[in-house]
């Protein structure tokens, strides 16, 4: 127990100190947290519930746009603002900026939950591959629709006001926003997976038909899980919107094959269906990506595809799954009948 406490304490200290110890890497570290958030939320449905979404990026992009629209709408007319494409002079006071940011994050999260329930109501009747393809389709379509929607800037995207004050302080703020969201999400999931809710979504993953036959409200659980995941992704999107300042619909908001697939790869690499897997995977993947990306000279996307294929084909359980096989006693896994020394009757 004491060991565990020391471990968590060290993590917290590292988390708090990181942006000051490595000041050059503030934005990089923030991105790691973003990856952790999207990987953990992807794993809620993908790993714990057995519903593999390829379209969670929809919530990220929607979160960005909702936050931007809320912030602008508090002060100006959105259509005019985006129509001027940076031509007009639009000032935001500090108060307006932070009010927009706070409200934007909140509304983004709630709006994305709502969207998840609506889309989920249609797509959760779909099992297995249909769900994955359906959600991927939704993400692709959402990007195209938004990039055709002039009111939010069309293909040009939206520019938000810059952080008022020292930009380095801004980077620290964004780091802690991401980190705070990530920690809250982690603790939330740590608790959620020990409740009956967690058991129920695991049951849906293991045998949905049996779960139905036992009278579990499967649709309700599926919708609730996805809505919770969407809430956190939406918030992450909102933070990204302020961090990026200017974003486009296809390149940065609904980036289907960048972040949309990264989150899946992170979860798989770390080990899906575990609490720590997506966290480990996100950190490993981001480090791998940052170290190799620039040396691959255009071949990085090919390498990404190869990484996906290699992970699913050869490294199914991910890092944590691999550890579980090697060191089962670390994880309190249930023993198999033939391994147990039972003196009991059959």
């Amino acid at each position, binding site marked *: 127990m004491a060991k565990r406490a020391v471990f968590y304490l060290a993590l917290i200290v590292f988390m708090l100190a990181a942006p000051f110890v490595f000041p050059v890497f503030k934005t990089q570290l923030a991105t790691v947290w973003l990856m952790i958030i999207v990987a953990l939320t992807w794993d809620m449905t*993908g790993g714990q519930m057995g519903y*593999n979404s*390829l379209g969670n990026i929809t919530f990220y992009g929607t979160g960005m746009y909702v936050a931007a629209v809320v912030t602008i709408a508090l002060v100006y007319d959105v259509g005019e603002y985006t129509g001027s494409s940076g031509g007009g002079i639009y000032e935001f006071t500090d108060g307006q900026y932070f009010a927009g940011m706070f409200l934007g994050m909140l509304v983004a999260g709630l709006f994305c939950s709502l969207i998840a329930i609506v889309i989920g109501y*249609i*797509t959760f*009747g*779909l*099992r*297995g*591959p*249909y769900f*994955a*393809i*359906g959600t991927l*389709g*939704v993400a*692709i*379509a959402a990007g*195209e*629709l938004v*990039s*055709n929607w002039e009111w939010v800037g069309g293909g040009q995207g939206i520019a938000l006001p810059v952080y008022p004050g020292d930009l380095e302080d801004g980077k620290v703020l964004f780091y802690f926003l991401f980190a705070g969201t990530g920690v809250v999400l982690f603790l939330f999931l740590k608790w959620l997976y020990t409740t009956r809710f967690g058991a129920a979504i695991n049951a849906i993953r293991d045998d949905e038909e049996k779960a139905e036959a036992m009278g579990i409200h499967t649709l309700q659980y599926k919708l609730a899980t996805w809505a919770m995941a969407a809430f956190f992704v939406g918030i992450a999107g909102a933070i990204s919107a302020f961090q990026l300042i200017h974003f486009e619909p296809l390149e940065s908001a609904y980036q289907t*094959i960048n972040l949309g*697939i990264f989150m*899946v790869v992170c979860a*798989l690499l770390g080990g899906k269906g575990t609490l720590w897997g997506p966290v480990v995977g996100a950190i490993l993947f981001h480090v791998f990506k940052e170290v190799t990306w620039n040396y691959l000279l*255009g*071949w990085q*996307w*090919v390498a*990404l*595809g*190869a*990484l*996906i*294929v290699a992970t*699913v*084909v*050869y490294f*199914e359980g991910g890092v944590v799954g691999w550890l579980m096989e090697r060191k089962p006693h670390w994880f309190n896994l249930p023993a198999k009948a033939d391994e147990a020394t039972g003196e009991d009757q059959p």
Partner: protein
Amino acid sequence: MEQFASNFGLLLQFPVVNLKIVIDGVMIGALFALSAYGLALVWGVMNVKNLAQGDFVIAGGYVCWWLSQKGLPALLGVPIAFLVMAGIGWVVYKVVICRVIDRDLFTTLLATFGLAIIMAQMLNLMFGSDTQSVDLGYETLYFMDGFIDVPIAKLLGVLMAAALAIGVVLFMKYSRMGQAIRATAQDVRAARVLGINTDKVYAFTFSLNAAICGAAGAIIVMVWVIQPFYGITHSVRAFVIVTAAGLGNLPGVIAAGLGIGALEQYGAHIFGIGYQQAIAVLLLLLVLVFRLLQQRRVRQSLQ
């Protein structure tokens, strides 16, 4: 909005426009049906939902385009794309697919999605991201006072697609390999017990699928355009068609393919070309919801 409404009004005002849209849609839909048939084949026989389907199509298109750039007759590109993609399909099966075939559905889906990314990006690196097409230089036929234009190249494309489809059907029906494929589709274990080498059957089916896609792509580059990242839209279309028609239902696949082609042309006419992917996806969701309601009536879910 007014734009959409006026586009729609045009359809009512000039009924002949409808005919033009349907003819265009049906001609391109015939090619969609071809790659959808390939998807139905691998789905039915080896239970692989191939998300790289559209990228096989695009790759086949680039084979044909590259040959015509080198001065070879473009029509020769169709059989060559067929053969080249058969080879690529075989390699893909041996390297990736045969290792995921017995695993859960998402594994195959994600593995093929990874393949799709690899293929699209490699095509992008090799040929650039511009849209490409091959001009066969044939004339265009005009009907109804010039309202309806049918390029001979498109007509030729439909004929080639039909010939290929008939060839594949005959092959499946009468050849030993075709019979083995159909036997495997019905019951893998029984087929194995009866001495069919199912691994060989799988490899053959997958490379046949890639070849069909390749030929479809080679025709598409002659009658339409290709671009490295158009693959995913073709994949979505293939899924729409197969989901609508069901597995092992060739007439259904053809009908759905032609229907999707026509509906997409209508969508493009009303909403503009900028919504191409969104329209394909919307059709997918519509088909899925429809199938879902159908299933719910028989107290089942869509598996």
